[in-house]
């Protein structure tokens, strides 16, 4: 393996989607603690074919591997964050088949359909920010940034779901994404800024 991580964190950050960069050191620490607790992959693995951000990957995974850990540890896509690892915080939100889901409660072996992560949100124009990413920057919709990739993935889905009609609608639709810095008013402002641009396509 010349390049275990085809998309390195450095390249992701350089690509401009690293709005969560401020907390990278913290993320690394917690991740190391968690992974040392899990036994290594055993002989019984499952063959899976994952399509992530348009790239197809053939992988042998431990049946216990979540989509989140597979994205982060196997594919090097560290934009999706591990917050609670129990489906309570939304930091791991990605799109599967265009619908927002929690990658921490999804087994990689059970994924059916293409996956989009924060790294693939702006599509072919990877050097440009997606309108929702730009809106989070413009509205200062984060402080530490750890929850931000999940917030943005959820926010884009909320627009597609038609749940951004009012501030109250946005707060309700975004309630699955917690922000411990409590940037909530700014997040609502960001969603309102980006929604018409996304709806126009």
């Amino acid at each position, binding site marked *: 393996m010349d390049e275990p991580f085809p998309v390195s964190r450095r390249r992701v950050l350089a690509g401009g989607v690293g709005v969560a960069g401020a907390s990278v050191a913290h993320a690394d620490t917690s991740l190391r603690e968690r992974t040392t607790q899990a036994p290594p992959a055993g002989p019984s693995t499952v063959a899976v074919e994952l399509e992530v951000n348009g790239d197809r990957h053939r992988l042998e995974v431990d*049946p*216990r591997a979540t989509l989140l850990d597979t994205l982060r540890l196997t594919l090097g896509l560290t934009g999706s964050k591990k917050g609670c690892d129990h489906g309570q915080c939304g930091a791991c939100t990605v799109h599967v088949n265009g619908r927002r*889901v*929690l990658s921490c*409660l999804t087994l990689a072996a059970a994924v059916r359909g293409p996956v989009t992560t924060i790294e693939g949100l702006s599509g072919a124009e990877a050097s440009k920010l997606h309108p929702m990413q730009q809106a989070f920057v413009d509205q200062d919709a984060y402080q530490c940034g750890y929850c931000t990739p999940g917030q943005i993935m*959820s926010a884009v889905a909320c627009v597609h779901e038609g749940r951004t009609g009012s501030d109250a609608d946005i707060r*309700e639709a975004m309630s699955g994404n917690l922000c411990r810095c409590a940037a909530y008013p700014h997040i609502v402002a960001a969603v309102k800024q980006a929604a018409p641009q996304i709806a126009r396509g």
Partner: protein
Amino acid sequence: MERFDYARAADPAAAVHAASLAEAPKNETQWPTQYLAGGTNLIDYMKLDVLRPQRVIDINDLQDQHGAIEVAGDGLRLGALARMSDVADHPDVKRDYPVIAESLNLAASGQIRNMASVGGNVLQRTRCNYFRDVSYRACNKRDPGSGCAALEGVNRKHAVLGVSDKCIATYPGDFANALVALDARVNVLGHRGSRTMRFEDLHRAPGDTPEIETNLEPGDLILGFEVPAGPWTRRSLFLKIRDRESYEFALASAAVALAMDGGTVREARIALGGVATKPWRAHEAEAVLNGKPLDEAQARRAADAAFAGARTREQNAFKPELGRRTLVRALMQAQAMEV
């Protein structure tokens, strides 16, 4: 998470056959095979080591056959693999069975509703912290005979209806209460064939065996639900009271459906959530309302009847009154609905 074998089932019979291979203990937490649909509850509890199946059978390929949402003249049919969000957002369900749509939309988060199947939703496990955290030794539901740490522990969110001295864990779901209010039936495939049972008979109160939560047998697979049509389904709603406004389990909830003759209740259907050990049909409250004019005083009498058998602990003594007020408000709102 403990190791397990993962397999995908191509059809329901294959799934049930694979799940029925092993001899299973009565304790449902220790069943050796679990079905995986959305995984929002199963994977969580497997990460907590509460559930440690040896085999996980992925049934998501059954969604084409058993994931449909059909609103017909005689009722509503929901395939077990339909996702919560698809049922909640279905225009016919919202119009004809608002209590169903609302119970789903008020539950969990947008992400979880996209993932979770309605079949799995009704089987979600209690949020009792002593059940969820295996470092507590005393949990009769996990380990029969070990005791119940909640009886004298942190029990603010625990049940007051259907409790026993073995277990006071609250049934956490919302959708199941809408189903039980509307006399739904559940279609089950087991290794002896398929059968239909009243949804009200799916779950069991803890009694002396809190480790047995349902009347399902090991390997039984829920394939769908039938909700009969009736003059009460359009005038129906789900009212959920909780510690925070969204993305939270109920402290108290009411699923209410009313058939009215002017100001008089022809037939009432009521279920209560957040306060009971299982999806809780409030037959006593319905009997108070049926055939009588409905006003706030009458609604209060019905609520008193619903909670007449409540048994509280130190921290959840507020629940009967919160539950009564929740039901009164739900009844008044349902009466005021324009249908």
